[in-house]
């Protein structure tokens, strides 16, 4: 058992290093003198996202992710799931001809939120890109690591995850066009112009496939949300973390909102979008968005307090978020490192259900120090 913990521990420590990287939050990332400092391209306005090219990876940027979150039902039981692939350009050993050179790291995590289980079933992978064992394809969505894959096939996505205690085999079929976030895909993340990402979402993906938990294989269906985002700098130096929510609304609409929190808890920056059932998109500015905690949940493992229930105002809409279960902390570590909350939530307006989605709360278990 000890060995198992050690292993998990080690993976997480390494993994956390990468999370820190993609949040751009590690002050000690200054490269050693012997490494040629890598210049990451800035995220600028005016770039037109073109598809399918921009479905693929953008290896020159520092960080990138494909983030699938969703709800599925099987035999009347609702569960949340997330399948996430990250790509990080480390800036290290760029001139090394070795196939092992850790220029690009790929890592992934997959989780199932199952209220019967009580906490997340979680597994994760991390590897350097190379040898076709871990890769993020350019030109079309295709990420894989150690047999875990997410790729776009024709119009739809397929995800296959063989985790330690569950297996996901999911088809994700789009029902709506791509939703460009921010200004035509340029999504501002902070007060400074450079603090931004390219960001688009595909809400209302129709999910079908199977979910195997233990030895039980369940046919599932539901809906999901995909985010694809890449950038070279996201988290402002003064930020403590962020809150993010992406909702598939029951009427076919979609809502996304996020805010960057300063260390004192105030909002540094915010943004979001609302697309109604008819496809009309409203891009929200910082003033349009507020996150108001309704209920705190304290993690028994880390002691961190998460506002797992929130009232979110996005433009004219005010929705209440209530988690599928409180304990959806992505507690992947016994050591120091990033621990955050990524959970399935239900949305309601005045107590009336309006949709389901995912809420992400970072920076509550302390700002990562690395």
């Amino acid at each position, binding site marked *: 058992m000890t060995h198992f913990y050690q292993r998990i521990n080690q993976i997480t420590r390494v993994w956390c290093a990468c999370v820190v990287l993609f949040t751009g939050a590690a002050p000690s990332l200054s490269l050693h003198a012997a490494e040629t400092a890598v210049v990451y391209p800035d995220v600028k306005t005016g770039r037109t996202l073109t598809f399918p090219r921009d479905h693929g990876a953008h290896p020159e940027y520092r960080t990138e992710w494909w983030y699938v979150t969703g709800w599925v039902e099987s035999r009347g039981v609702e569960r949340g799931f997330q399948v996430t692939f990250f790509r990080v350009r480390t800036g290290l050993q760029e001139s090394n001809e070795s196939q092992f050179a850790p220029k690009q790291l790929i890592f992934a995590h997959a989780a199932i939120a199952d209220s019967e289980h009580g906490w997340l079933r979680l597994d994760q992978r991390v590897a350097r890109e190379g040898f076709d064992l871990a890769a993020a394809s350019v030109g079309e969505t295709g990420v894989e690591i150690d*047999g875990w894959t997410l790729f776009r096939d024709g119009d739809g996505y397929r995800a296959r995850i063989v985790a330690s205690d569950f297996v996901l085999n999911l088809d994700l079929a789009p029902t709506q066009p791509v939703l460009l976030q921010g200004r035509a895909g340029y999504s501002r993340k902070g007060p400074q112009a450079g603090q931004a990402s390219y960001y688009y979402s595909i809400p209302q993906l129709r999910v079908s496939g199977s979910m195997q938990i233990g030895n039980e294989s369940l046919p599932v269906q539901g809906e999901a949300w995909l985010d694809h985002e890449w950038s070279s700098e996201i988290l402002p130096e003064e930020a403590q973390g962020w809150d993010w929510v992406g909702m598939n609304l029951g009427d076919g609409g979609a809502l996304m909102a996020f805010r960057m929190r300063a260390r004192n808890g105030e909002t540094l920056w915010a943004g979001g979008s609302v697309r109604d059932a008819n496809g009309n998109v409203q891009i929200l500015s910082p003033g349009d968005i507020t996150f108001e905690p309704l209920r705190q949940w304290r993690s028994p493992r880390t002691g961190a307090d998460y506002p797992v229930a929130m009232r979110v105002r996005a433009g004219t809409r005010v929705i209440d978020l209530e988690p599928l279960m409180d304990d959806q902390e992505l507690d992947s570590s016994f050591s120091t490192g990033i621990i955050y909350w990524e959970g399935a939530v239900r949305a309601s307006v005045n107590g009336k259900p309006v949709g389901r989605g995912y809420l992400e709360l970072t920076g509550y278990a302390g700002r990562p120090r690395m």
Partner: protein
Amino acid sequence: MFLQLIAGPLRQNRMRVALSLLAIALGVSLGYAVQLINRAAVDEFGNAVQTLSGESDLTVRGSRRGFDDAVYPLLATPAEVAVASPMLDIDGRLDGRNDRLRIIGLDVFQAARVQPQIIPEASDRMDTLRGDTIFLSPAAMQWLDTETGDLIGFQVGTDRVEFRIAGVLPGTAAGQRLAVVDIATAQQHFQRIGLINRIELRLRPGASAQSVAQRLQPLLPAGVYVETQQSVSQTAVALTRAYRVNLNVLALVALFTGGLLVFSTQALSIVQRRSQHALLRVLGVTRRGLVWLLVGEAAIVGLAGSLLGLLLGLLGAQLVLDAVGPDLGAGMFRGVSTQLTFEPLAALSFMFLGITAAVCGSVLPALEAARAAPARALKAGDETRMFERLTSFVPGLTLLFVGACTAFAPPVAGLPLPGYVSIALLLLGTIALMPRIAMIVFERVPLPRRSELALGLAQLRAAPGQAMVSLAAIVAAVSLATSMAIMVVSFRTSLENWLEHILPGDMFVRTSGYGETPYLSPDEQARLARVPGVRRIEFLAGQRIRIEAGRPWLTLLARDVDPRDPGRKLSLVSDIVIPQSGQPLPVWISEIVADVYGYRVGDIIDLPLDGRNVAVTVSGIWRDYARMQGAVAMTLESYRELTGSNDVADAQLWLDAKANADDVRRAVREALPEPGVEISEPHELQSQSLAIFDRTFAVTYALEAVAIVIGLAGLSASFSALTLARRREFGMLRHIGFSRAQIMRMLAFEGVLVSALGLAVGLLLGWVMSAVLIVVVNRQSFHWSMDIHMPWSGLGVFAISMLLAATLAAVASARRTMAGGVVRAVREDW
């Protein structure tokens, strides 16, 4: 009372008791130290294997240089494989230091799931991925006196590659010297782009390691093998087995001589105390009780000797570990600093052996003493009866015959046990025959005219059994010492000749002394060739490859060998076969390869090189004392053609007749400024090699000396016993007019005769035993041959000094015995 009975005689023969005790202590300490050192080494080696393999089920290894890293995805993807952790394991030469450090290039993400012990701890996790960072085990940090943040350099080619120490490897075992870098960093800086040399595989639960190994093996390039953890550990431990067993046998020899000394001491003491023992019997001590008493005395000596031996063994082992490392100077364990643990079981066993040796030595004299009828023994003049019984020819001859036959038996479990048994039987058989031999020889010695000398000879003729103990002592001592001396001198001379043979140049420029990373590039080779004063230059290259699973790496050696006359560069011990054109190219294998892999001259074998099998012809067998795991030599030309590598490890220079060696040396230094290149002349290399040889055989030298001292002590003891027993005889002689000097001359003459006979037989037996040692034991242990070189002058000096010493010992003991006044002794006979 009992204690006093025991303590008294022990005090009386203080010197001899001390010697017996020391001999037993030596045997016990040697055996125990070997055991401790070996255990420490094996533990450390096991730790090293454990650390590197972690929780893996299978290990894939090929040549040390490496195999195509495209093998890695092939092994990472099968369904049974949970994790594959690729590695580049390199023996790096520390820059500016004549030493090496093992560097593991690893993929931290994969290694974390298989080998958590070698995962670095870094304040900045990205440091584990950088191209210029390294992590050291605590032991390596301590050894190099460095800390996090310091720089550490390695010599690659003749360049320095520098890393920043970014943290430690907290999981490594205590004492383990190890460094870890990123695998891509290792490939780049140690110039192995595209190569790895080790993959650890952790299988999914339920998968059988054995069957997965069988399934994966065909996926691997030639010369790369997938092995279970058990096999990996066994290969590692087997490296030192032969060496260890031989040292243990030496320990047994020391114990045997110790037992022999106890025997002679007890025999003397029993003669001295014959009437005392008889009195004890009269007072009611049973025969059995007397035996127990005498054996008890010896057991106390054995116990004291063993305890002293254990202490000495512990100290000695620590000393050896500190000074030369756990391989006893043989160069088999690297990068391992060992820690001793007191081993109770081994300690008890060696204590038992020590006491047993002493008890065995005392049983015969004790039985003799008990056998004597008390009434007769109480009267003086009975002592001589003790040695009078004469053994028959049969047991001695049988022992010799069986011993001779045993020498031809094959090794048992790869160990030369029959050879040792043969030597022991030969020794025992000869000793058993000694009284007979003595009788035959002394019958043929013409009677001298001087009456006292004639009397001495007559005495020996009439009662040859009397000299039995002296003879046994001297034969055992002389034969053991002689056989070891002949073996060591033969080995040393063969080594010297061999060195001259394989190092024919006037100067050597070597990078291969430490670690695998240094080499000479083609440009540097050209610069060397242009050095003024260099008439001719030849290069040597090589790498370590594996040609069978479950066997350690052997050396593939490439040098300028003429296939038509390979004997000029290689020390050939077989006929040669010259491949015709169109036949596979020739290689020459060392005796070790011939023995271990069973190849014969003319065989066509597959040599895995860079992942493919190359058919080669075994064109000859040569003697190689340098590479204990075996070597295969090929021409440098073929090597370059097959590997595409033009780098070499060493160069041999022939100088112009008028060139000054020091000038050339300076010019070479200028051409190759790197201090990690060693420049040496043949005599320096030879003396270096011989110094290592002498260090390795130091134990043998010590044992030779001990055998001689013990032989002399035994001789002196038994002479004392004899003269003591014959006190009345001397008294009688004085009465009938013999002068004191005449008696002394008689005793001296007897001493000379006995010693001469013992010496002659001992030398002869030693010679036979040395042949068994050289041809059987040595060959089976180390798989190399040597020419028998008789150290004539040494043996001559040895014989003369032994004769002198033995005679002196005889006279001295006689003088001591007679000091009491022999005339009075006659009066005891009432």
